[in-house]
């Protein structure tokens, strides 16, 4: 078939990675929150805050590295509200999550307007690292082994989290905090501290994902630019059932859907972009129908923990 040319496949895979990395980061983050029992709906807002601060610092300092750091910090700042309001004070996670998302959408749009009015300055193209030899493999090489350092970092994180969950006491504590917080408490571990750490880490990862979209993906910041990527992250986390590798698989799949438009254009096939852009969301629904009943979420997901309420 003429469709599966090298150019098409390369564009598809490269696009899948570019669109998938933010999903991967945000999905890994959400997964950690959910493991600990916090349903983090504010993650879309954390992502957007990260996109804004990441872009701003990268543009001001002309340093991508500092931009990513700032992005992580921006996401963490929004997550701090979540940690205080939902974990410490035990307020409703869904209401707070929605407010944080809406709040971050408004705040970043206004800040951007004050600073840049209606102009959208563009960042220079980001630095890429070619991995020797691997880079020369057709299709996979240019798509995967000639990428920005942050891509390698995100992929590396998958194994870090897999190790953390399986091989450390912190991983056990996270799981216990989500499944039976009272059990963790009676073991002498501060449930609220574990959950707060999880939420802040989530914020940093979501911010990083947002920064990736602004700095690597688009090269500009546009208000509302995260486009529901954070929400797809929530779906990924729910479907991955606590396994980081599954988040990677899901992120690649959804990333491929998102990038299909570009790839089809490369192949010279003209399908309305609107149809293509619906694909990831249709995919979400199909996956939910097929796997949703087996999502196997933590028992205490979404419930605040207060000692003595047995």
């Amino acid at each position: 078939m003429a469709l599966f040319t090298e150019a098409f496949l390369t564009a598809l895979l490269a696009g899948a990675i570019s669109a998938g990395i933010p999903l991967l980061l945000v999905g890994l983050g959400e997964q950690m929150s959910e493991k600990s029992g916090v349903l983090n709906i504010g993650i879309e807002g954390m992502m957007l805050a990260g996109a804004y601060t990441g872009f701003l610092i990268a543009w001001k300092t002309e340093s991508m590295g500092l931009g990513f750091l700032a992005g992580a910090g921006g996401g963490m700042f929004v997550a701090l509200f979540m940690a205080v309001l939902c974990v410490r004070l035990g307020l409703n996670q869904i209401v707070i999550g929605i407010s944080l998302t809406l709040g971050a959408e408004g705040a970043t749009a206004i800040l951007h307007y004050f600073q840049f009015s209606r102009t959208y300055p563009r960042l220079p193209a980001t630095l890429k690292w070619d991995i020797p030899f691997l880079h020369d493999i057709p299709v996979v090489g240019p798509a995967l082994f000639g990428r920005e350092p942050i891509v390698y970092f995100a992929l590396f994180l998958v194994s870090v989290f897999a190790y953390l969950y399986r091989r450390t006491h912190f991983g056990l504590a996270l799981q216990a905090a989500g499944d039976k917080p009272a059990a963790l408490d009676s073991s002498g571990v501060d449930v609220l501290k574990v959950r707060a750490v999880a939420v802040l880490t989530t914020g940093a990862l979501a911010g990083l994902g947002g920064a990736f979209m602004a700095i690597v993906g688009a090269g500009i910041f546009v208000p509302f630019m995260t486009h529901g990527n954070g929400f797809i992250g929530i779906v990924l986390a729910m479907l991955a059932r606590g396994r980081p590798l599954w988040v990677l698989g899901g992120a690649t799949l959804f990333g491929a859907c998102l990038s299909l438009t570009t790839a089809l254009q490369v192949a010279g096939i003209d399908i309305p972009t609107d149809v293509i852009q619906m694909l990831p969301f249709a995919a979400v629904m199909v996956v939910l129908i097929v796997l949703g009943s087996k999502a196997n979420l933590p028992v205490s997901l979404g419930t605040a923990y207060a000692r003595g309420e047995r």
Partner: protein
Amino acid sequence: MAGTSAAATALDPNGPLVSVRNVSKRFPGILANDRITIDFWPGEVHVLLGENGAGKSTLVSMLTGFLQPSEGQIEVAGVPQDLASPQRALDLGIGAVYQHSMLAPTLTLAENVSLGRSWWRRPDRRGIADEMRKTAASVGITIRPEALTSALSLGERQQAEIVRALMRGSRFLILDEATAMLTPKDAEKLGNLMRRLAQDGRGVVFITHKLNEAVSYGDRISVLRQGKQVGGLTPERLRAMDKDEARDEIVRLMFGARTASSEMTKVASAPRRRIDGTEKPILEILALEVDDDATPVSGIDVKIRPGEIVGIAGIDGNGQVQLAEALAGQRPVRDGRIYLDGVPIEDKSIGARRNLGLSYVTDDRLGEGIVGTFPVSLNLLLKQIGDTPFWKHGLEQPLEIARNAEEKVSAFDIRTPGIGTPAGKLSGGNIQKLLLARELGEKTRAVIFAKPTYGLDLQNIEASRNRIREAADARKAVLLISTELDELLELSDRIAVMSQGRIVGIVDNNETARQRVGELMSGVGE
């Protein structure tokens, strides 16, 4: 016993391991513990007995650091301690095992034990497993540390929790209704384990509802009632009695021995209504079975004749709610039949049953009894929405609704600022009156009361009980579910005792009923 206790405590060899001194605990509107003073000695299994709401769980929560006393203090080995957190209680060697396991279900036993160690460390699964096996062997049990917690029986989980407590160096173990959900065999294992722990010089507190267990495994017994300590049996007295004497004495302490305060609700010796044994029953329940994850209900056979009150006694959570909901139509019936005036109703909807004359006064007054934000007038018609004459062609008839409300409010003495007041703003007693007004209509043939006086003050308790009597006097069939024995003895003609989803006995309400119901509730003769 004195020899082992001397060897047990390091700090004060002759003193108690843990002492509760004049401890009170207040919750808004409730005095859960009222100046309780108890010593817990090493080398003893100390049994705490009491009905639901007697304050046992509150006391345990204070000993384990989940709650703090409002007044009084807790001493550990003779030193006053502030048990501010579960961690602090653990550090002081106080461990607890509850009715429901406190292990994370998705972790293995060994992983559960390793919770709480330095977070970045790799859990030493093998080392912990070996240590668990060794500790288990030292008290004569075997466990499987590598097994996933959710795959184990409750008995196995509890043994693992005891092992965990021992590994942490607990010298004082609280078993809070730990045998409640166990099979008899597992319960016996746990009983032998606690004897073994006491022989090794540890202190064990055992909370149970089953008197057989209390007498078999306990060295010393304390009884709580309504937050107060009302008596107990010392080891000397307990040893001097045989098992039957001990049980009688405990039943007397828990349920009998009327105190001055309970004289107020005077007991009518036996209900005066005459039930004609040959009359056809109104409500007939035959071999009823109801599915439930926690407490499946089976083998319910009850017949209630016109004007008869049949009480259902039992400790909360033994299937009473499931039974009531199945009768009312709020829960599917798995098997068996329910007849109302000879008509089978087990497949009928809630509304159809109601139209045939079956009413259900729920104990979940705020949750399912009323819609709190609706006015009193609408709540009085909550189960007839859309019915004429209050609605015509789907339109509300405000005059009819108001007339009905005024009538019911004055007939049932509902104290409300007006019929438009949101029902949720009324006091508990008045909400109960509202429910009674709604459920006790003229068409009603049979009424199910679920804990009708639960949480009410004395005056409203009396009012509710009078309504129940009136319902029976009006020749309705009454099923009265209550956890308060005095109430059942005051009102019922017969009392059925429910335990673990089954009726374990039905007794006529006469002079010996108190003792016999108490025995059935406590599992004597199981």
